[in-house]
């Protein structure tokens, strides 16, 4: 097995992310990891659902949540999922510049999402004095949404490190799998958010 990872158009493989043995490992490994993450978030959701009415006299979900911000955040994150798909599309076409561009947009959208979330938390804390320590509901809310936020932060750091690191080197069979696994991870963050906005925010507003 030769270790020449650089790419040229003639030898450009069907799917550069899975062309090497290491690439395949990374890809499958990340997916399995997401299987575990599913259980992790399920436990957090379950805890939240068990405690979401334990407000101990403090503010409840109906008092707190508003539709507009959550909608904006949702659109931001969903769109960032699409932009990362574009990036991968360009990767498969061996177009490194465009790939970086679309991943850049993805990162920006992610940052915007995070900004909204920080604003939201600050708002709850200052306007409603609703904190992590207020009630079991508070603890469960910040933990669930915060864990998701933490995943976003981690994803962003990962992406930015990748982009900076490879800016001058271009695409290779060595780094293509890294970009690709990032993209899958990013979609998963989106998946979790879909359930957060549905279960935490939307359901929290109706019941």
């Amino acid at each position, binding site marked *: *097995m030769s*270790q020449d*990872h650089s790419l040229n158009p003639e030898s450009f493989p069907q799917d550069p992310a899975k062309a090497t*043995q290491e690439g*395949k*490992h990374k890809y*499958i*490994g990340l997916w*399995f*990891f997401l*299987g*575990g*993450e599913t*259980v*992790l978030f399920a*436990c*957090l959701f*379950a*805890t939240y659902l*068990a*405690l979401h009415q*334990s*407000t*101990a006299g403090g503010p409840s979900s109906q008092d707190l949540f508003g539709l507009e911000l959550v909608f904006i955040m949702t659109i931001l994150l969903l769109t960032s999922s699409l932009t990362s798909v574009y990036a991968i599309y360009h990767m498969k076409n061996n177009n490194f510049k465009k790939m970086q561009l679309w991943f850049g947009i993805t990162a920006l959208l992610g940052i915007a999402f995070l900004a909204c979330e920080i604003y939201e938390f600050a708002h709850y804390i200052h306007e409603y004095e609703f904190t*992590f*320590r*207020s*009630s*079991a*509901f*508070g*603890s*469960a809310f910040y*933990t669930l949404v915060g864990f998701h936020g933490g995943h976003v932060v981690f994803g962003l750091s*990962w992406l930015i*490190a*990748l982009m900076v*690191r490879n800016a001058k080197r271009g695409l290779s069979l*060595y780094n293509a799998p*890294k970009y690709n696994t990032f993209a899958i991870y990013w979609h998963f963050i989106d998946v979790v958010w879909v359930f957060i906005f549905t279960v935490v925010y939307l359901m929290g507003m109706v019941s």
Partner: protein
Amino acid sequence: MSIASTQNKGFGAILWDYLTTVDHKKIGNMYIAAGAFFFILGGIEALIIRIQLMAPENDFISAGLYNEMITMHGTTMIFLAATPILVGFMNAIMPLQIGARDVAFPFLNSLGFWLFLFGGIMLNLSWFLGGAPDAGWTAYTPLSTQSPGHGVDFYVMGLQLSGAGTLMGGINFLVTIVTMRAPGMTYMRMPLFTWTTFVASILILFAFPALTVGLFLLMFDRMFGSAFFDVALGGNSVIWQHLFWIFGHPEVYILILPAFGIFSEIFPVFAKKRLFGYSSMVFATFMIAFLGFMVWAHHMFTVGLGPVANAIFAVATMAIAVPTGIKIFNWLATMWGGSIRINSAMLWSLAFIPSFTIGGMTGVMLAASTADFQYHDTYFVVAHFHYVIVGGVVFGILAGLHYWWPKLFGKVLHEGMGKIAFWLFFIGFHLTFFIQHFLGLMGMPRRYWVFLENQGLDTGNLVSTIGAFLMALGSIVFVINVVYTTMKGEKASADPWGTGRTLEWAISSPAPEYNFKQLPLVRGLDPLWIEKMDGNVKMTPAEPLNDIHMPNGSILPLIMTIGFFIASLGFIYQVDSKAWLIVLYAGMAIALGCMLIRSLKDDHGFHIHKEDLEREAD
């Protein structure tokens, strides 16, 4: 980095080699060694427990210390002894069995090991830093949230670290098995130990996140003032119990399935007969894993979940008897009609059958929830789980050690000492735990620092203590055997048993660092046996001799782990003084820095050249 250079190195070089190694065999050996160390530690704690319970109202140790002792005994044995030793076997053996040159993620593999080791160190550090955790290995809230001092904090951080390590190991094995099987090694040709590694890894993947979440919640409550388990603020203590057991029950199958795998390797080899009902064995393994996730509330029958929940979980639990029974009978049928040779490895395997059957039976008795109202939290339960764990897992580990010792270390363990150790341990084991069934039924709850006089519990407890000391004697003989064999043992051939069936016996003992010079071509189940029966001396290679790509060693996993370790101390002590936040951040910086270096620095590995390989004798 050729093979010859590993000989005749100074101590420093050898140490450095182990600190930086990413070789699955060395990591496997380190897992086993560390696990053995913790087993002795946990065993000494068990002896202290038994001394305390030797006589009624004994005060060998104080009440508080007793609670620390049982907590650390349970935690150490489960998380730091049994699990890691089995993970060690998976590491060292599974890649050989599927004809792979390493695991899929060698770097992650070493990170997983160091995380486990430092998690264990963290946990045991608590003895010296103001007291060990004292809320039981199950750490039920609110006892654990209210427990004073930092004991439970060490429990939380220690398990978090070692749990992360185990999770990495699990994913690693899964990817390895899915992608790295040798040509011809289809799923249904994989040896059962590989299968059970696969299924146990799935269990790890799905069970440990529940523990992770539980530990986070406990950590937040204890260190950051959240209210998950604080009843006054609407918290709910039963959430912890669910999270713990959603993890905890699959965990016991994480322990027993690899042990089943080991027995499934040993019985055919020493009965010289193919494993009976291979496909039903695989199927049963999956059934146990599947059902294992739907029974956790059988630990919570008395919590007050209501009759519907109790009934469902009771029936689901009993159902596990069926696939396990399939396995027991398949092993019996494997021996039936064979030509059974009894040596130490086989002795442990044979002893497993009655011992584990008793333990499984009492398990089914516990599953009958009405009766569990009586058994729960008594010595009956203690007897049950030591029968399955010691009689199943520990026997499995010891059988595996005797069986694979030549492959791991190149020497055959001394038979005579092996047998002495076996009989001492085996008799001691039944003496210790059989009587505990009755102690429980006679009204002795578990986790009792003392039992009172005149309650008819004296004789039973004394017998139990005597048994524990016999087990200790047996263990000591085993340790002597290991030392003796290391110094004087006979050198082992590639297939020291002569009847090896699987691929690990096709290569020299111990295995060379690249495992297979040429990947073997697998023509069926028990590939080596097939070649032997066809009169071939060696496996047919599936590829021409070529350069072998190897991963580079790295010190980063160790440093990264130390970073997390320091950060954990910061987490624990920032409650006392905010100055500790600096330690927290420093530790995090080290760990994240290592991650950054790892992702920024390309690591292409190196090659062992064809010429060097040719030069080596077979």
